[in-house]
């Protein structure tokens, strides 16, 4: 279980997170929604220790990672996979090498066993034929899927997704959504997904949390969220930003 308590983070004078409290339960997919620039990615990077918080606690099971040194943090990261917004695949390595890197790091496996595991991960994301290609030869959707294959290769307990469907066409985005659902059901991984795509959020999420003005304003199941009359939620649900603009134009 991941528990975030009273988390603060600011960059210069920009207070991005103020008193964030959030609980992520094992085996669940928790979706964090919020406007662009609301601090969703910052929250994800704080959870995995890529950024230090200014104040607050991040509990992974029974360890507060804020107090850990680099080496201890590395051992905690063993249990995490992270899918970056732009995939962040290593340019100089083939797809197979990208996926195998983490396995080599964590397990003392033979080359054949690593090869088999890479193949298994690529089959899971339905990309069996790209093992020897370089990231530059892949499309955006394929890169995302390879990113997922790399994140699950070392069989982590937690997997974090940063905007998994951003920049993809609706069909590819839906494939990614289904892939995340399969991760939850077949591999029993706990996922945290940061997105502003509400369709994604409702498809994937067991729990949806709204990050607004630096705090988690509300959290609930997709059904609860859908029925809420919260202003920001409604904006997300009906694309109210555009509606407001059109209304304003009519008023003028």
């Amino acid at each position, binding site marked *: 279980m991941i528990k975030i308590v009273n988390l603060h983070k600011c960059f210069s004078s920009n207070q991005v997170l103020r008193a964030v409290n959030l609980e992520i339960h094992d085996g669940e997919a928790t979706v964090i929604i919020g406007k662009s620039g609301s601090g969703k990615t910052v929250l994800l990077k704080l959870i995995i220790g890529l950024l230090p918080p200014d104040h607050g606690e991040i509990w992974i099971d029974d360890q507060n990672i804020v107090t850990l040194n680099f080496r201890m943090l590395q051992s905690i*990261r063993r249990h995490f996979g992270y899918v970056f917004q732009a995939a962040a695949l290593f340019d100089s390595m083939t797809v197979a090498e990208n996926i195998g890197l983490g396995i080599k790091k964590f397990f003392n496996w033979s080359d054949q066993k690593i090869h088999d595991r890479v193949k298994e991960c690529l089959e899971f994301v339905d990309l069996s034929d790209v093992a020897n290609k370089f990231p530059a030869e892949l499309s955006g959707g394929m890169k995302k899927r390879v990113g997922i294959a790399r994140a699950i290769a070392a069989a982590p307990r937690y997997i974090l997704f940063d905007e998994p469907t951003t920049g993809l066409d609706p069909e590819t985005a839906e494939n990614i959504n289904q892939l995340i659902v399969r991760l939850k059901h077949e591999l029993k991984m706990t996922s945290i997904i940061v997105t502003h795509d509400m369709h994604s959020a409702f498809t994937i999420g067991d729990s949806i949390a709204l990050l607004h003005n630096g705090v988690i304003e509300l959290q609930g199941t997709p059904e609860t969220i859908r029925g809420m009359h919260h202003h920001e939620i409604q904006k997300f649900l009906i694309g109210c930003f555009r509606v407001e603009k059109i209304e304003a134009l009519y008023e003028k």
Partner: protein
Amino acid sequence: MESTSVKKQSLPAYLEHVFAEIGKYSQLLWWSLRSLRDFSTYYENTIKRMKFIGIRSLPIVLLTSAFVGMVEAVQVLYSLEGRAPYYLAGSVVVESIILELGPVLTALILAGRVGASIAAELGTMRVTEQIDALEVMAFNPVAYLVVPTLIAGVIMVPVLTIFADAMGSISGWLISIITVNMSSAEFLKGARRFFLPWDLIYGIIKSAVFGFVISANACYVGYFTTGGAEGVGKATTRSVVMSCVMILILDYIMAQFILKLGW
């Protein structure tokens, strides 16, 4: 009035920025030193970096040193003509190459070829979150990326300098015996006359320092790159300029304080 106040404000801000940069640079070097124990992480990449810095730079280093040796010989022979015996050309050419031209020109070439490439590579990895990805996969990015570059720089730049010294001396010798009918024995007599083994050792020490400076600067600006593609471009330029300036300054400092230690 306004511009004066801006200047007054900007100096402390500039100094703060400079000290912050020095702090970050020192921090990266400290992390690198601490990461030396993480041998399994950097071993493989060190070999790759040594190939990149050493073997792939060899042609350009040999080409440059060959022409430097030739030009040096022509100019020295021109200066000696009718004023001093030609065999002194052997001494002047070899000494100037092993003391100065070999180490400094090799370093300046590598600052451009290797420093720019490494800064661009690390900078791109930073802005595309590849360094974050390494960290997330529980790698120590400093051990994985920076330490191999530093080790390879310190080892391979002196190796390349030895090749440059040899090529420069050989080309100088060839030009001397072809253009003024000097015998090889005469050239060697001149070369041996003022040669001290310390001169060669000094040149190698100097090139090891330059190797460290080139790789450390490239790693520093690359590792802390911000600002997307534009930031990568700036980092690349900065790495080359920083290295060239530091090479020239350190060249003087070492000539002033280290050269005489061998006497």
